[in-house]
């Protein structure tokens, strides 16, 4: 075998992890040692490649959960994704109806999305700090967008925000579209996007269950799974 000295057999399947790590799928101890191959186990060498498995059908072991959280005990930043079903749906609606999307493409966009959010957020956060504020507001986000090359989003987003606020004024409340497999269970307080809300109710530890949101139109009670308004 040409590559036995390197300890890597091309015909064996590799599991390609979302962050570029690869692991040999069978259990033998031949050297897939990154050190033997001169790589760190992340991206390979300087040429920035990721091993593609023979089947490359979106290997198992990439996301443990469909909903895109890598591990429940201690989120690593890179493990937090939006649910793949939501992402896939948006992609599907964006391309022509006859188009298909490879599974690894969906998973990849999932990661890109997290990267995008982090990208925008850190830029917005920086501006926020510069102005000695603690709460990131809409302006910071819009500013970040335009700084980072998403200037074309700014105007449409402003319109969306305006419509959103108007809609919230006019209605008693809305039910969000159902999210698949999102187990956080605290969607409820997300609905309270009314103007009456004091800003920045989200606490630093991300807990929402204790937040009671009072508006003139309805009162939300944490633990209730869904509110429906006629």
């Amino acid at each position: 075998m040409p590559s036995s000295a390197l300890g890597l057999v091309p015909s064996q399947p590799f599991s390609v992890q979302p962050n570029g790590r690869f692991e040999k799928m069978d259990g033998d101890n031949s050297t897939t040692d990154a050190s033997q191959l001169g790589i760190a186990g992340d991206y390979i060498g300087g040429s920035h490649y990721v091993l593609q498995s023979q089947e490359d059908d979106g290997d198992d072991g990439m996301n443990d959960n469909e909903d895109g959280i890598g591990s429940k005990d201690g989120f690593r930043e890179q493990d937090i994704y939006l649910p793949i079903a939501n992402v896939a749906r948006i992609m599907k609606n964006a391309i022509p109806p006859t188009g298909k999307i490879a599974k690894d493409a969906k998973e990849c966009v999932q990661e890109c999305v997290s990267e995008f959010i982090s990208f925008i957020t850190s830029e917005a956060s920086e501006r926020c700090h510069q102005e000695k504020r603690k709460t990131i507001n809409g302006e910071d986000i819009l500013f970040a967008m335009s700084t980072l090359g998403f200037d074309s989003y700014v105007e449409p987003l402003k319109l969306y925000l305006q419509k959103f606020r108007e809609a919230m004024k006019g209605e008693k409340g809305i039910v969000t579209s159902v999210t698949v497999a999102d187990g956080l269970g605290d969607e409820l307080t997300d609905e309270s996007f009314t103007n009456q809300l004091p800003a920045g109710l989200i606490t630093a530890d991300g807990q929402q269950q204790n937040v009671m949101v009072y508006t003139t139109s309805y009162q939300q009670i944490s633990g209730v799974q869904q509110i429906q308004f006629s």
Partner: protein
Amino acid sequence: MAGKDGSGKMLDFTDSRQVSLPISRVKLIMKSSPDVSNINQDALFLTAKATELFVQYLATYSYKKGTGRETKCLTYGDLARSPEECDTFQFLADILPKKILARDYLKLLEEEEKGDEGDGEESDDSD
């Protein structure tokens, strides 16, 4: 595609009031950035909405560029090419490495080794 709300009214996912991504998860991702303390509701909504737009843009762009190769199918490869071709996607360059089959990579390595050593020390058999 559309869904229904509690009153049975059909929801349009392009409805500007709706965000088809879970806000709480968006918030979680945002808060995983260093030095982020609070995020106001507008900012959350805008980020979620912008993320939708971004997904649409990335998918459309990569699909268009890809047509002609794997026709009608958006593949990882299409996405991986996007940072090269469009500045806006540059920030994704690190997380979209190109994929290579193991045997091709090994060939590359072998060639490099031969180049380094100069005298082509045999570390493998020929095919």
